[in-house]
């Protein structure tokens, strides 16, 4: 089988391309944008060292930003999400800690676990993204509304992709 490193690298590029070419054009209701590329950070193996998660999030965000001409906004959100990922993992860890080789997926960790893991991280990511984009706190509630709706759709897409990605190895 292909090594996990190569697997992740391919996923990196695939998700960036998918996001900028297809998903950026999905604009429900005029203000809801799903950002599926965060799936990359969610699907990184659990044993990945923290600095590697941060660095790969940095470059992931940079890749998206380059295409969207909003240099720095997605970088800030992705790096923040990567930082919180470590703490969320520790928060949600089962009593004996994670077994080696376990993947953060519905198949390995269960639906509820995955929903909370992905849900929290996606919410944090979108929060930072939308608030930095607006760069002010004056329209807090409308921005928060956009955050919730976009996060919901991203979560939906992420859960769907889980079923797609792991169906083959079932």
């Amino acid at each position: 089988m292909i090594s996990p490193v190569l697997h992740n690298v391919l996923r990196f590029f695939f998700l960036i391309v998918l996001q900028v070419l297809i998903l950026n054009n999905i604009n429900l209701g005029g203000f809801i944008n799903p950002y599926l590329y965060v799936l990359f950070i969610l699907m990184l193996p659990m044993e990945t060292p923290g600095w590697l998660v941060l660095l790969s999030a940095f470059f992931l965000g940079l890749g998206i930003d380059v295409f969207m001409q909003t240099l720095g906004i997605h970088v800030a959100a992705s790096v923040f999400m990567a930082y919180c990922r470590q703490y969320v993992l520790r928060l949600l860890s089962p009593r004996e800690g994670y077994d080696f080789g376990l993947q953060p997926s519905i198949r390995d960790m269960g639906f509820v676990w995955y929903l909370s893991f992905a849900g929290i991280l996606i919410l944090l990511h979108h929060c930072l993204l939308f608030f930095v984009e607006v760069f002010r706190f004056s329209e807090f509630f409308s921005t928060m509304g956009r955050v919730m709706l976009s996060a919901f759709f991203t979560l939906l897409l992420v859960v769907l992709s889980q079923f797609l990605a792991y169906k083959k190895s079932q």
Partner: protein
Amino acid sequence: MRNLVNLFWKYQFTLLFLLLEFVAFALIVQYNKVHKARFLNMSSAVAGSVYQATNNITDYFTLKRINRELARENAKLRTMSKDVFIKYRGELVSIDDTLYKQQYKYLGAKVVNSTTNRRNNILILDRGRNQGVEPESGIICANGIVGVIKDVSANYCSAISVLHKNTRISASIKKNNYYGILKWDGKDPQYATLADIPKHVPLALGDQLITRGSSAIFPAGIGIGTIAMFEAIPGSNFYYVKVKLSTDFRNLSYVYVIKNLLKEEQLELEATFEDD
């Protein structure tokens, strides 16, 4: 030293996160106009109010000198007012029916912070958008020209002074109207250079330079300085002219921001030059 390294090592994850996040914000503020403008607005508001607070204290040390200068300027302005002139030849009365349209408005401002020892020197004034200051307005003081406004926030503005590498002010020699471009070479805050004066122009040390008024920024006739030295540049048709600036940038306090009410009209007309 080892303790510091240990500290970095212990918190490496958080520190790396902070570093990357800082880089991300630097990118955001640098490359996105909206964020850049809002960030500059906020930071200049903060810096401006801090300078204002310290100035409230340091002002007391210069009160005596400022008072003297203001009194001197008052005297100069009084002598220029019309009531001081008497009718010399009473029998010939020429009725001057020109309608005077006000072209320039002066707004007094105080210099809150300024630098003179760098290559590019700037000033911060305590007037901003709420008081009617617009970017690209000229600034003068009682002695001569000071600079051009660059950025404006709600109550403060920043300006590039004459002592800046981007300064290009059109200056003309008072006695014969030949004009050139005033620039600053970064060496002495009291001297600037005048370029584009051809060799056939009669120059003398001490000749006065005034603004030409060709840009919409400064009105014509504002004093700039006097010629301190000139020599022909070998191999070209021009003089190298060194100008002693009449403004002393090291103790600027009260200045006037010039609002040109006919600026847009002049700029629109000038834009037709570039089209052909």
